């Protein structure tokens, strides 16, 4: 059981890591879409959580690329905007769901629990 967290902010990565590790889930981190794409080509994950705005390759491009070869792994995007447009775009590109930042550890774990079984 492994989860990939993609975010350029180390704080977010570590928040996710500590929360999920407390649930007994292993977490791998990546700081942008390109890095993440390399990782997912090598390893399997039960769930991917990715930020949208990131340098080098952003979350939507990563999602698009990922969905071109994997349509079954749940993929959650982290959005800061309450802008439904972003969610819609992410959904069109194949996002399973979204977590709105800022989120509490509790929100995160309850969503993750539904996708990692």
């Amino acid at each position, binding site marked *: 059981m492994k989860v990939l967290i993609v975010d350029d902010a180390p704080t977010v990565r570590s928040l996710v890591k500590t929360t999920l590790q407390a649930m007994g889930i292993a977490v791998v981190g990546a700081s942008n879409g390109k890095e993440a794409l390399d990782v997912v080509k090598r390893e399997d994950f039960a769930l991917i959580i990715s930020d949208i705005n990131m340098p080098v390759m952003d979350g939507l491009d990563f999602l698009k690329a990922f969905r071109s070869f*994997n*349509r079954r*792994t*749940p993929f959650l995007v982290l959005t800061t905007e309450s802008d439904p*447009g972003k969610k819609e775009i992410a*959904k069109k590109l*194949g*996002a*399973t769901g979204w977590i709105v930042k800022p989120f509490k550890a509790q929100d995160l774990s309850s969503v993750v629990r*539904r996708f990692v079984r």
Partner: protein
Amino acid sequence: MNWQKELQRPLKEGENLYLIRFNLGPEVFSRGIRIDWYIEDLKSLGELILDEQQKKLPDGDEVADDCCYVAEALLVTKEAEDTIKKLLEFILDDGVHIEAISARNSSQEHLEQKAEVEEVPEQVLNDYLAETAEHLNAIENNLVRLEQQPSEPELLNELFRQFHTVKGNTGLLLSFGPNRALEVLKRIAHCSETTLAKARDGKSQLSENEVDALFEALDALRECFRCFKERKAVEDTFDELIARLSAPPSEEESLNRKTRKVSDEELKAFREIFLQYGPFLEELANKQDLSPEEEDFFKRAIATLRNSAENLGQKRIVELLQAVKVPFDLKDIISQISRELEKAKASEEQKQKKIAKTDRVQIESSIRVTQEQMDRLMNLVGELTAFREWLKWFVQHGNETWEKQKQFREQIQRYSRLVAEMQRTTMEMRMVPLHMLFQRFPKVVRDISKALGKKVQFEIVGEDTKIDKLMLDRLGDPLIHLVRNSLDHGIEPPEERIAQGKPEAGRLVLRAYYSTEGVAIEIEDDGRGIDPDLIRLKAVERGLRSEEEVMRLSDEEVISLIMLPGFSTKDEATELSGRGVGMDVVSSSVEAMGGKVKISSRRGEGTLVKLILPLTLAVRKVLIVRSGELFFSIPIEQLREVVNRPEFQWVADRPFMVHRDEAIPVVPLSSIFGLGNGDVADAKKVVLLKEREEGILVDEVVGLTETVTKPMPRMLKSVEELAGISILGKGDIAYQLSL
């Protein structure tokens, strides 16, 4: 699902009953959604009764086009609706519908000023509008019956359910956001329901006044419904009505009410008395000292007025008059009484109108049909059409005598007429005015242009144009994209426009009309237009085209490059227009409907995006051609010309056709699909298409026919040149070309 039957026990204290409908397609499953998990999660909330009607879940990573999950679930839980919604959040807009059948009304009903329901999924909204209109009509019919038999339990129950459903559906819509008209509507429905519940449970009989109040409630519901539909504010809060519905009238009050039923004549009489006394009273009110006669007149006048007001049940007037001790008090009261009288008059007139209306007995005859039923019917009509083609073919190729053939042909003609008529009617049923879609846009445009700080004059033209319902549903997103693009990239900020000598406010037109090719929808702006050189630059930069290629393309061709996947010219994608997923999504979804997108633009003058859509998705007129052993169909809209026995010339090993003094390159249809080279010399006919320079060589032109196009089977999905398949008369398969 019949929940009353399914759930064979009464709800316990604190339990709620929800009906959850799933209608999920492949697009949901290719997002990594596991429906089994959702069902498990729902089970953890309480008792779940599940009726799975269709379940084709993805097989491993394969998400097939027919993946779907159609089911109804009854959930008995102590949780609130919000909890369920939160749980289903990621798929809620994708075909999940939650209906609270019996949920405790815990939330305080409050009225929000002027807020509007936004972002309600269109399907939900349309369903709501249709269903509620239907319920309101049914309520009217039942209320009329109720007047005759006010304690008929069956009738009371039915009415109760109808009000309840209206309330429930309204609540559902309100979950998308506050809306005043709907809040009021829900409140009235709720109070009517309460009134009916008392009578239904045998606690009390409905009084005549209560039935009257229910009639008034119906009018009020209609008014709120109309306001919501037309996005207007409701003017009345119907507080008096609500108070009357929810609080049972006291003994005294009900007596009062009884007398309230006054004839128009009586009311008129009172008005006359009042008008008679009025001027005198007014005069007295302005006087300081009264003579004894005046005093006497004053007292008598007030008493008379009060008595007649009492007789007429004008309670408010009686109260007012009781407060009058000296003439001076009359000052304010005279005008108030006049107002009360006006009110009474108005309500009387309304009653009259209502009576007149019911006299006319207008029955709005419409029934609701699901999309699925509609599609099935259309498919059947398609099959009938195919069968007609087969019959024709059979008669031509059979061994029947000529006499028999003639008889057959006559019968087939009759059959054809019937099928054609049926097809036309079915097609008409599918057509809905674009208004249903366009009505959202004024607000969308306002919101976006406000966010962007731009001034825009928005115009909608031709919203009566009708279009296949299925297409209407799929057009929403592309159109919003296009409008956003125009507002964001096209129309300049006010300062820039002024500097260029343009009017400060940009112009944006959303236009629809019937054209020879089908239904056209245009989005036109007078903004900065598209710079073809910039597109050239970007196309090369993004590796979409080589430098030589882009130089060779005309400006017009270059502009259409923005529809390639992954193209976005604004260096930083702005928040509103998104990021490069725009135009390619628009063009691919329009093409998926059998339509196409044309863009024309002049630098500095504006851009016109034109979507051309087939009239209907279901039946298309096509030309059937044969190449080798395979049949192909070409939609008639794409066809330019068919050339018989062409003359060929060879230039540098390439065949050309000389046609009307033009040398047109030709290519055998078979070689497009790599089915062999196809000897050019053997080819009999050349088909010229509107969108393709090369002529297509075919072995035979079979003829024009109407077919129902079905999507390509999965194995052939990757063949870009084929758009779908259809079954021909004698059972052959024709592949629909999309060249």
